[in-house]
C-alpha cells in the first residue's frame, strides 16, 4: 500500500465532531506523484473537507472521526504532520483570512513564510521578488495587504503558499475572485510548475481539463469517478450535476470523436485538434462551404 511514488487515499471517511452525518464516505483514490489532480463536484460534495484532510488541518487542528489513510509519497498528513507541513503550501477558499495580519506590506507578508522556515534575511529578498514577479505582484510589493483587490489577494495567498518551494500544493478554489485574464494567466502559470504534486479544487472545468492529469469527482461525500479528464468527462452521470468543458460540448454536438476511441469525445483543445486533423477533414471543408 505504501507506494512512495503515489498519492493514495485508502478508505477515507470523516465525520465532523458534533455532527451525525459523515462528510466523506470511504474514499479510495490514487494519482501519480508530481501530477496535477483536479477535484470537482458541487458544494456540499466534500471538496473542502477533503482538502483539509490532505493539508492535515483535519485531524491536527479540527477534530472529528477520521478513518482510513492518506499517503502522499513518503509523507502522510495524518501521521507525521509537522514534517508534512514543511513540504506543503495551501491556499484557502477565503484568501483574506489567510493573511497573517502582522505585515505592513505585501513583501513582508510573503517573507513571513520564509522567516518561519528559517531562511536568512539575505536570501529572503531575492525569493520574495522572484515569486511576486511570477504572480504579477511586483508593483504591489510595497503596498499594504489590506489595500489589495480580491483577485490580487488570491494571488498573494498563492505567492505565500509557493514561496517556500513546497513539493505539495493544495489550492481550494484559488481563482474564484480573479478576472478572466487573471484566471487565464494563473492556469497557464500552474501548468509550468514542475516537481510538485498539486491538488486543485475549482469550478472552472474548461481550465481544469486543460491542465489536470487526473480528475477526482466528489458527489455527496463519495468519490464517484476518477481518471484522466477525458475519461471522467466522457463518463459523467447527470445526477452529479457537473458542467462540461466547451470543447466537449462542441465535439458532442458536431459528433467529433477521438481518433483512437470512437466512444470518447475530446475535452482539451489539443485533443480536439487531433480529432480535427485526423478524420474530420470533411467537416472542415464543410465549414468553408457553408460560409461562402
Amino acid at each position: 500500500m505504501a507506494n512512495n511514488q503515489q498519492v493514495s487515499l485508502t478508505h477515507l471517511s470523516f465525520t465532523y465532531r458534533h455532527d451525525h452525518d459523515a462528510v466523506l464516505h470511504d474514499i479510495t483514490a490514487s494519482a501519480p506523484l508530481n501530477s496535477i489532480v483536479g477535484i470537482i463536484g458541487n458544494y456540499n460534495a466534500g471538496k473542502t473537507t477533503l482538502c483539509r484532510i490532505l493539508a492535515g488541518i483535519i485531524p491536527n487542528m479540527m477534530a472529528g472521526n477520521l478513518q482510513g489513510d492518506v499517503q502522499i509519497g513518503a509523507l502522510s498528513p495524518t501521521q507525521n504532520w509537522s514534517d508534512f507541513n514543511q513540504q506543503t503550501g495551501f491556499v484557502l477558499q477565503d484568501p483574506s483570512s489567510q493573511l497573517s495580519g502582522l505585515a505592513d506590506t505585501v513583501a513582508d507578508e510573503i517573507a513571513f513564510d520564509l522567516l518561519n522556515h528559517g531562511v536568512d534575511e539575505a536570501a529572503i529578498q531575492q525569493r520574495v521578488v522572484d515569486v511576486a514577479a511570477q504572480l504579477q505582484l511586483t508593483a504591489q510589493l510595497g503596498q499594504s495587504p489590506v489595500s489589495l483587490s480580491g483577485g490580487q489577494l488570491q494571488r498573494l495567498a498563492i505567492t505565500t503558499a509557493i514561496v517556500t518551494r513546497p513539493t505539495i500544493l493544495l489550492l481550494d478554489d484559488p481563482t474564484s475572485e480573479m478576472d478572466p485574464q487573471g484566471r487565464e494567466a494563473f492556469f497557464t502559470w500552474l501548468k509550468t510548475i514542475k516537481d510538485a504534486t498539486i491538488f486543485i479544487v475549482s469550478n472552472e472545468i474548461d481550465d481544469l481539463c486543460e491542465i489536470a492529469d487526473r480528475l477526482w469527482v466528489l458527489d455527496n461525500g463519495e468519490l464517484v469517478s476518477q481518471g484522466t479528464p477525458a475519461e471522467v468527462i466522457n463518463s459523467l452521470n447527470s445526477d452529479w450535476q457537473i458542467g462540461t468543458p466547451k470543447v466537449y460540448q462542441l465535439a458532442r454536438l458536431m459528433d467529433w470523436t477521438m481518433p483512437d476511441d470512437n466512444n470518447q469525445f475530446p475535452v482539451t483543445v489539443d485533443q480536439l485538434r487531433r480529432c480535427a486533423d485526423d478524420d474530420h477533414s470533411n467537416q472542415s471543408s464543410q465549414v468553408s462551404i457553408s460560409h461562402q
Partner: protein
Amino acid sequence: MTTIQINHLKYQYPTSDFKLSIDQLSINENLVAFAGQNGAGKSTLFKLLTGLVRPQAGEIIINHQGLAILSPEDRLKTIGIVFQDPSSQLFNATVEKEVAWSLLQTGLDASVIADTVDKALATVGLTDLKDKNPFDLSLPEKKLLAIATVLAINPQIYLFDEPMISLDWPSRQLVTRIMKQLAKEKHQVIAITHDMDWLAANFSKMYVLSDGQVKFEGTPETFFGLPALSAKTGLLTPRIMQIAKEVFGDSRVYLTPEDYMKKHSGN
C-alpha cells in the same frame, strides 16, 4: 416597461483618480449585461443606481422620475441589488430572519411577510435551511439567500453584481433561470459580468465599460465581431471562439457551441 435614463453623470472617488463619466445612456431592455475589466466602473455605476453613492453631477431617471428625489422606501421598491460577495449582504441570525429583515423595513403586515419569505425561499430552493445561520451556509447558498432577500421585496429593477461568481453548476443554472423568469415578468434585470461565455449564451443586449466610460452598446454578436474593441476594453472572447480560432483558424463569431453547430449545418 422600465426605462433607466442617465444624463451627464459624473462621479469621482474622493481618494482616487478614477472617474466615471456617462454622457447619455438609456436602458430599455429587460435583460441587460454590463461587461468591463476590474476598475472599469461597473460597480460604481451600480452603487450610483442604488443611491448608495451620489453623483457629483448629472442625474439618473427611472421611469421619468429622478432617482435622487425618490423616498428611501420607494427606492427600495424600485431597485434592488445582489452584491458580488454575499457575505457582505447578510447579517441576521437565521435564513428566515434574513429574508424577513428587508420586508420589515417596508412595514408590511406580519402574515404577509411570512408568506412572502416562504415564497422567496422556495424560489431559490432554500426552504429546508430556513432555521440555519446564514454564516453556516456554503457560498452558493449564501448567494442564493442574498437573491431571496431581494426577491422578497420584488423591486422593479434587479441589479446583479457578478452573479455567477462563487456558484456551482446547478446553482448557476438556477440563478440564470430566475433572472430570465424575472425579465419575462417585465422586471428589468441588469447584470455585471466577467463571464463572457455566460453573457454570450444568455444576453442579447450588452454594454461595455472601460475607464469609466461606455465604449460599446449593442448585441454580443456585434461586440465579439470587433476584436480590436474587445482587446482595447480588456475583454476575452467566448471560449467557443477561442477554440474555433485555435483549432480551425476560424475567427468568426460564435456565441455558444450550439451557435457553432447552427452556423455549420446550414447546408
